[in-house]
């Protein structure tokens, strides 16, 4: 099916001059006006899935309520306003381009880096994780409402340890059964430990993020069902640059995670069932498949291209400063300020020396993600840096702000 699509698309590409816009089918467009809509994506492409989600947010009727479910191939998704150099071990992402033999990739192959449009922290997606999105009118919106719906879906599958916590995430309580509780309450389980008992941290299985516009409220979350990668996720989400970066913006709050151990299908059916029960549509809710054909629709494609672009991924980073001063192994203090993903200032000082060398003016505006060689770039940034020092500093910066492979 997919290969057929691709062949057709290439053919269409040639005919693009003849066919001005491929649109979504009329029925798909009409559906956007229905009061209750449910979609599931057949694609594993995180950029496509997020673009479809964004399209639904912008184009669906303001009073409608929408469910979208999707699964992504292995990818790291950072929040709207996060810093990829701070949150992600970028060196691990494109193992085939690795020049340093000591950075052994954990064996996942290529992992996409995606910046989404909603807030919140960094998460790891793979085929054992199902993402759910609910879009509704702001009047009906609360931060917990749909997390509670998902917990009810989980409980209907027998996951009685699941509940919504104070951060609107879904967690599984650990440890022994404590007390009988009101089972309709999605914020407490029979295993929830109260003060006075030795603490056992619950495992986080779903994180939430939101995007609020004037007319619509979007709440999406992950759900860790059966990821095979739990033990290597920490490696991807731990950046060596973290101790050396001073930044603004939202930081991720790390929590121990665990798998619910439910199949994707079982979970998807349960969520759909709870959604349909909550938002009754007189004709019943049809679950519509969304696939790569949606890319033919111009607004979706534009959003897709934007999400894929390195400009969106890297230049949307809030201002930060990176400095060698906290690293005792460096003999030179170098500090660089990066604004909108591009160098905006910096200086260098040899430790034990008094002279401070300012960043050369022509380096201002150099986009960090476009740097191909740190030793070369550093010698352009600061005059008077000799070869050996340039190599040492270059190696340090290469570890902290890895060169991005040209895609």
């Amino acid at each position, binding site marked *: 099916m997919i290969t057929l699509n691709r062949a057709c698309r290439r053919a269409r590409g040639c005919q693009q001059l003849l066919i001005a816009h491929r649109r979504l089918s009329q029925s798909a467009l009409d559906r956007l006006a229905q009061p209750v809509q449910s979609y599931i994506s057949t694609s594993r492409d995180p950029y496509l899935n997020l673009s479809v989600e964004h399209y639904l947010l912008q184009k669906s009727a303001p009073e409608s309520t929408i469910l979208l479910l999707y699964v992504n191939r292995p990818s790291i998704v950072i*929040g709207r306003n996060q810093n990829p150099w701070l949150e992600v071990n970028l060196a691990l992402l494109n193992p085939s381009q690795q020049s340093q033999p000591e950075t052994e990739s954990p064996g996942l192959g290529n992992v996409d880096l995606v910046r989404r449009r*909603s*807030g919140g922290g960094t998460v790891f997606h793979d085929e054992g994780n199902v993402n759910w999105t609910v879009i509704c009118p702001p009047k009906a919106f609360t*931060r917990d409402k749909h997390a509670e719906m998902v917990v009810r879906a989980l409980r209907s599958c027998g996951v009685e340890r699941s509940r919504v916590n104070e951060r609107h995430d879904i967690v599984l309580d650990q440890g022994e059964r404590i007390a009988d509780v009101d089972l309709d309450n999605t914020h407490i389980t029979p295993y929830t430990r109260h003060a006075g008992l030795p603490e056992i941290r619950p495992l986080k299985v779903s994180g939430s993020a939101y995007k609020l516009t004037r007319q619509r409220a979007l709440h999406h979350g992950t759900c860790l069902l059966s990821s095979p990668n739990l033990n290597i996720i920490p490696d991807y989400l731990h950046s060596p640059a973290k101790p050396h970066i*001073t930044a603004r913006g939202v930081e991720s709050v790390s929590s121990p995670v665990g798998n619910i151990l439910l199949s994707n299908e079982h979970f998807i059916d349960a969520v759909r069932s709870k959604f349909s029960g909550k938002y009754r549509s007189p004709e019943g809710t049809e679950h519509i498949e969304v696939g790569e054909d949606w890319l033919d629709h111009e607004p979706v494609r534009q959003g897709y291209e934007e999400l894929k672009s390195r400009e969106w991924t890297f230049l949307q980073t809030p201002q930060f400063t990176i400095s060698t001063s906290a690293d005792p192994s460096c003999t030179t203090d170098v500090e660089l300020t990066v604004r909108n993903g591009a160098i905006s200032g910096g200086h260098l000082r040899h430790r034990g020396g008094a002279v401070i060398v300012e960043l050369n003016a022509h380096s201002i505006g150099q986009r960090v993600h476009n740097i191909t060689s740190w030793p070369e770039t550093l010698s352009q940034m600061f005059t008077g840096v000799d070869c050996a020092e340039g190599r040492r500093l270059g190696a340090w910066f290469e570890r902290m702000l890895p060169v991005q492979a040209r895609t």
Partner: protein
Amino acid sequence: MRTLLLRACRPLNLTSTSRLQTQLLHAVSLRSLHTTHHLNIVKPFLLADIGEGITECQLIQWFVQPGARVEQFDKLCEVQSDKASVEITSPFDGVIKKLHYDPDDMAITGKPLVDIDIQSEITEEDEAKLAGGGGEEGAGSAAKESIGEHEIRVEGAAGVDVAEPAAENPGSQPTHPDRRRSSGKQDHSSLATPAVRHLTKEMKVAITDVRGTGKDGRVLKEDVHRHVAQSTQQQSTVHTPMQTSARADRKMPLTPIQTQMFKLMTRSLNIPHFLYTCATDVSSLTTLRKTLNISASSPDQRLTQLPFILKAVSLAFQHHPLLNSSLDSTDPAKPQLTYRSAHSFGVAIDTPSGLLVPVIRNVQDLSINEIAAQLRQLSEKARDNKLAPSDFSGASFTISNIGNIGGGVVSPVISEPQVAILGIGRSKIVPAFNQQGELVKVEELVFSWSADHRIVDGAECARCAERVKNLLEKPGKMMVEMR
């Protein structure tokens, strides 16, 4: 009705949040504009409360620049707070005059976001979004009020009923405010420069233990040195606490509700509290309630003790208005006391996310049934997460009932600008002697009154407390006091 005032001689200071601006806005009625006469009104549009106790959020991007013409509902900017990215749209037609923040800056809730030259009709609700807030005070005190009020939305609640954890004696707080943060791997790069963190490593100090005095709570070098000096002092005087097992401590950030409580209760440290407790025989009240509840139409229409207590306090306040007053002590040399005419009682509610205190207004004008209905409504709203910031504002007195959990004598903490608070525990059956000297069972409920001794003296508080006790011990007395 807004009348047109002529203030042509006074220069308009666009950046000050003065009373003049408020009045000028009230004064100018756009409907009275002549078509040939264009009045320029440039107003700061405030960043609205986005709930969750969030007081600031990061500005991500602007969609407009100064000089841009906007229509109502055009996007102005995108802001981000923890998990939510929010698009802010213009409520008016107009021209953008000034942006108050650069991208990446932290924008403060309740403070100006942009200045707009308004060229459309303004409704009353829109006025509230502008500096001056449409209230009696200027925006300066409006901002202060917004911190004093409990502007917190409730997180999905269940089992909502009134309760307050018995407040700790504020005097026993540790020297280091126990700021729990996330553990080990968690990054604090936003709280200290690399140089300072290098220093903490050198001095073998955990940065999370150091209290930062710099901007945004940043840890400065002086803070590290001070911490080291203090802890060497403490080591000689403090015993290490007993470790019951090798469990790891957990550092957690404060939730939004805890943050708000922290700020509010820290300010309450200034209040010299005294406690007056009063054991009340509520047997007659219980009998009365049982009788009334027989004819209740449904289980949730049954009357609890609380509406009666609220009414009794309100009746007592007719004779003791001092306990319903507000103290403004911002200038310690000139404290201002305001006797509030309305009895607006904050009622403390325990929710899974923490303590919330929504307000029931004008209790003096409400019947006991009406008070009960309002209490029910507030509980429901709290459960459905529908409490708005306006539900928390303007309390003149607070009642905190922890009876559904327990409690005998409690020592509640006053929220400024109030001057008193009443805490109620759980009633229990105790032995007592009746007028004939026989041993009988009575249902006793302890009322714990805390009052601000800068304003209220023991005798006045005691008289009020005894009056409430009498009203509740013989409910018939309430009947003859009602208007």
